[in-house]
Every structure is written in structure tokens, then in C-alpha cells.
């Protein structure tokens, strides 16, 4: 798609209007609930399970291990420094889905086509 100057100007106007609305409208707080079940409760984890460098190069191996053992052995995954995590893709997405393009931006660049999203809802699929 070719992006013209007009598109950019309109896009910027819309975005700034939305940001202004969000910032200055007190009742616009995150009250929306995507489904009757999902209540906006704190997300699972606030720290990454391994250093960023390691996760960047090895997340697929870790996730593969979690996939193979997660359902069968529901005990938590324990990191080297003793932190515990549920072996679930949602553990990762609890933080990383705040960026809708977190997974797809690299995967697309690397032409990686993981099958995760056949069943799991990717940040892009979320309502």
C-alpha cells in the first residue's frame, strides 16, 4: 500500500485526538471488559524468566520444552534463581502482549511461521 501525505496527516490527527481523549477523560479508564469472564486483574509476572539476550536467541527452545511438558507436568517452571512460572504461553503474553506486534514483527522479518497461533490467541487476534 502506498502511503500518501494525506493518509499521514489524517492518521496523526486521529491518533492525537484519541490520545487526548484517553488522557483527559477520567472515565475512559480501562473499564472495558473483553468478555464476561475476563476481569482486568493483575498480569501474571512482571519479570522476564531469563535475560533478554538469552530469550532473544532461545525462546523457541524454552517454549518448546514448555509445550512438551506443560500439560503433563503442571508443576511450575523454576528458573536458576528460584523464580516460579506457570508453563504457559500466557505467562509470556502477560507482559509482552502490551505490544501487539511483539511476536509478529520479528517472526515476519525472519520468515518464521510458528504454529502457536493456530490455537493460542496471538496479541493480534485479541479483541
Amino acid at each position: 500500500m502506498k502511503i500518501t501525505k494525506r493518509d499521514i496527516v489524517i492518521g496523526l490527527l486521529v491518533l492525537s485526538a484519541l490520545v487526548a481523549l484517553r488522557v483527559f477523560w477520567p472515565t475512559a479508564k480501562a473499564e472495558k471488559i473483553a468478555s464476561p469472564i475476563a476481569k482486568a486483574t493483575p498480569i501474571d509476572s512482571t519479570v522476564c524468566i531469563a535475560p533478554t539476550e538469552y530469550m532473544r536467541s532461545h525462546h523457541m527452545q524454552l517454549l518448546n520444552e514448555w509445550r512438551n511438558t506443560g500439560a503433563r507436568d503442571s508443576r511450575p517452571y523454576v528458573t536458576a534463581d528460584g523464580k516460579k512460572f506457570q508453563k504457559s504461553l500466557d505467562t509470556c503474553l502477560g507482559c509482552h502482549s502490551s505490544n501487539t506486534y511483539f511476536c509478529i514483527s520479528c517472526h515476519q522479518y525472519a520468515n518464521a511461521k510458528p504454529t502457536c497461533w493456530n490455537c493460542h490467541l496471538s496479541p493480534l487476534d485479541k479483541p
Partner: protein
Amino acid sequence: MNEERREFIKKTSIGFLAGIGVSSGLFLNFLLEKTDASLWSDKNIAGTTRWGMLIDMRKCIDGCQKCVDACRLAHNVPDFGNATHQIAWLQKSPYREVFPTSGEDFAGKERTGKSVPSLCNHCADPPCASACPTQATFKRFDGIVALDYHRCTGCRSCMASCPYGAISFNWKEPRPAIKAINDIYPTREMGVVEKCNFCSERLLKGKLPACVESCPEKTLTFGNLNDPKSEIRLLLEKNQTMQRKPELGTLPSVFYII
């Protein structure tokens, strides 16, 4: 600056602006629930827990579908709207279909006229788990007969071996047939089976199964069959209950009061 480079910079800045949107809270974060790590034990000792359910048909309202709907929503169960492709984890079926061998062929309507919630019985000796060639269906340490969708090859041996018809097969891509997507549970894909998981994902968060929680009449009681002091055990002690097709020796963990 060549054309492609211009396009690239434009598109990247759109991504950057989207980032500003995220940080200002314009786009919602995932609505994920916190998992309470204290509910996990590091040693899952087989035998301490056997989850079970008691369904009190004296309380169940005919025509009510609240539990079925709650289950559909909780697990993104698709609804294809026809019997051939039907997928159900929990459904209400005519009494005679749920208890075909109970010897009540000529019993009165007031006993056999209702439709009865039926689901996977989480059998203590599950034929489905024995039949599965990939061990995708297996019995967990807490008695739940679980299904690891990652391992399922879609051979449907489990469906053939389950005497209760508790397992459904995805003949078609399920996602388009899901009315309301619940974003805290995955969907399945075409070519795998699916069935009730006793809400193991909710148990992990210290909650009761969705059907139990949704029933306004408290028809469903959920609890640990191996704990003699649990509510379900006390009810089982005091009432006359029955299981589905007990003569098959699958030892169902779902009990009924009629």
C-alpha cells in the same frame, strides 16, 4: 533517498506512533488473570486428590442452559449449528441417552423425562487414555483425564473407546464458529479432538469449574472424592447416587442424584 526507503521510514513511524498509543493506555493490555503460585504443590502426589462432580437432578431446571453456555464461553467451544459437526464439552441430553442401561425402560416421566447434563466422567480407569496411541489423552495425578492438544494426531481412537460419547472432533476449523472469543483460553484447530477438562485451568487459580459457578440452583457440586470430609463426599454418603454405565468398570468420577 529512494522510494522504498521512504516507505520503510513511513511505516516504521506508524509503528512508533502505535507504541505511543499503547503507553498512553489507548489500547488495552491483555486481560490475564493472576495465577496463585501458592496453589501449586511442587510434588504432585498421585492419589491425594481425585476431582469429582455430583449432579443433583432434583434441582436442575429443564430447559436451562446456563452451565452449557458458561462452558462454551470459558473454553471457546465452537458451535457449528448442526449435529454432524457438533462439539460439546458439556451438554444436556435426554435421560434415556445418558443412562441407557439403568434398567428404567418403563419408569415414569417424572424420573426419566428431564434432560441431564452430561460431560466427560473423568473415569478412574479411562479407556480413552488407554486407546490413545500418542498419549495425548492421559490421566493426571489429580484424577482429571486431560488432553494435550499439541500431541493429538486426530486419529479418534479415544472417541471410539469412550462409552459416553464425551469427546468431539474438529471436522472444520473451529475459530470461525466461536460466537464470543474468550481471550484467556486458547481455541483448538481442525483435526484434533476436544473434551471437558474439569476446568483444570480454573482450578489452578483457585476457582470452581465454570459450570458449577454458573448454576443458579447449585445443581453441581465439585470436590475431592479422596477427601472424606469434602462436601461432595458427605453428599455421596447421605444420598442414593448413580454413575453412568457403571457396569463397564470405567469408574466414573461424575455422580448423579435423580
